[in-house]
């Protein structure tokens, strides 16, 4: 005997045959939708290339920088008040302002390094190094939150001064490396074009390529320059001169390759 029962099919009740119910249309649709969602969910994350990430992190860095500057200005005011009146209240205000400034300083530095890290996909060693400093800064904010006296802050600031030297070295080294990586990608593209255009690379561009490599190596070597124990000696400006030389060589190769291709095409 066949008995008519109500089953759930495509969102509406309908009469079907009874017995052990097969997978209904709704069920299938349900699974299919979850499957689609599973497939599609990671796609936007994967589609975010490093430029999008850089934009996000850069915006965050600029925002954190503004906060730091506001807090720093407040710190200067409170410090001035304490130096003038030397009261318990003004001391407490100064300690509070110091804490806020240092917390926002660490957050700002961390957001800067996060942004910088996204530009270093080809240099995992520097990425790891920056990541370590980011984690260190995060842990320091936990420590800072528990400090209460001026003496505590003094000890912390003394330690920070020493640690900030290698942080600065890595920041500037990363900036140099990031520019070198960017230029090397352009050089690879130019080589690819030359290969497709049947242009002899070695015959036409070997000398300029050597100049380019040499300038990059010299730029990076500035990061190995001697540092003092108690202060950072800047090297970025010197490296910038070498990077400009590398840039000039690269622009010259681009221009020459263009003109050779034009000549070859007979226009």
């Amino acid at each position, binding site marked *: 005997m066949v008995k008519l029962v109500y089953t759930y099919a495509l969102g509406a009740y309908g009469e079907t045959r009874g017995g052990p119910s097969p997978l209904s249309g709704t069920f299938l649709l349900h699974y299919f939708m979850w499957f689609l969602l599973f497939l599609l969910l990671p796609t936007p994350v994967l589609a975010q290339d490093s430029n999008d990430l*850089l934009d996000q992190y*850069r915006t965050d*860095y600029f925002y954190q*920088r503004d906060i*730091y500057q506001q807090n*720093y200005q407040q*710190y200067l005011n409170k410090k001035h008040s304490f130096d003038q009146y030397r009261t318990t209240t003004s001391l407490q205000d100064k300690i509070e302002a*110091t804490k806020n*400034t*240092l917390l926002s*300083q660490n957050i*700002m*530095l961390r957001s*800067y390094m996060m*942004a*910088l890290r996204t*530009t270093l996909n080809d240099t995992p060693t520097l990425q790891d190094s920056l990541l370590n400093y980011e984690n260190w800064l995060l842990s320091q904010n936990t420590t800072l939150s528990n400090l209460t006296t001026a003496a505590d*802050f*003094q000890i*912390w*600031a*003394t330690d*920070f*001064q020493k640690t*900030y030297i290698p942080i600065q070295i890595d*920041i*500037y080294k990363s*900036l140099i490396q*990031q520019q070198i990586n*960017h230029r090397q*990608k*352009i050089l690879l*593209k*130019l080589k*690819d*074009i030359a290969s*497709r*255009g049947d*242009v*002899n690379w070695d*015959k*036409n561009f070997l000398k300029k390529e050597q100049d380019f490599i040499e300038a990059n190596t010299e730029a990076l070597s500035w990061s190995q320059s001697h540092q003092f124990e108690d202060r950072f000696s800047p090297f*970025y400006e010197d490296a910038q001169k070498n990077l400009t030389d590398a*840039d000039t060589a*690269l*622009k010259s190769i*681009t*221009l*020459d390759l*263009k*003109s*050779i*291709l*034009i*000549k*070859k*095409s007979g*226009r």
Partner: protein
Amino acid sequence: MDEKIYQNIDTPKINPLEPIDNNLSQLVTIKKIPPKFIPLIALGIIIFILSVAALVVTSQRKSDNHNLAPTPTVEIPTSSETLNDSLIPTMFQADFKDIDASLNYSPNLPPPEIDISVGL
């Protein structure tokens, strides 16, 4: 009767102390070149100079030709700072557009400036 001394009228001034009036120059008659020949002479001189110069240049060129390589070895690019990108073969135009944009790219990440004396 005293003898009267007469001076030879053919030699009225025979004083060796006085400079001899030399009129020999007057004897040489300079023959002036007729003006109609002057342009011809100038033209001849110019032709002579030009032919000498041509001879020198030709001999120079002949000696240089021996040093020239039979075929060019390297494709010499145009030494122009700006090129008309529309002349680049179509298949490379998009690539070069990307490269030109990349060459002027900057990450715009100014390093943070902090006061490390805060807290001291």
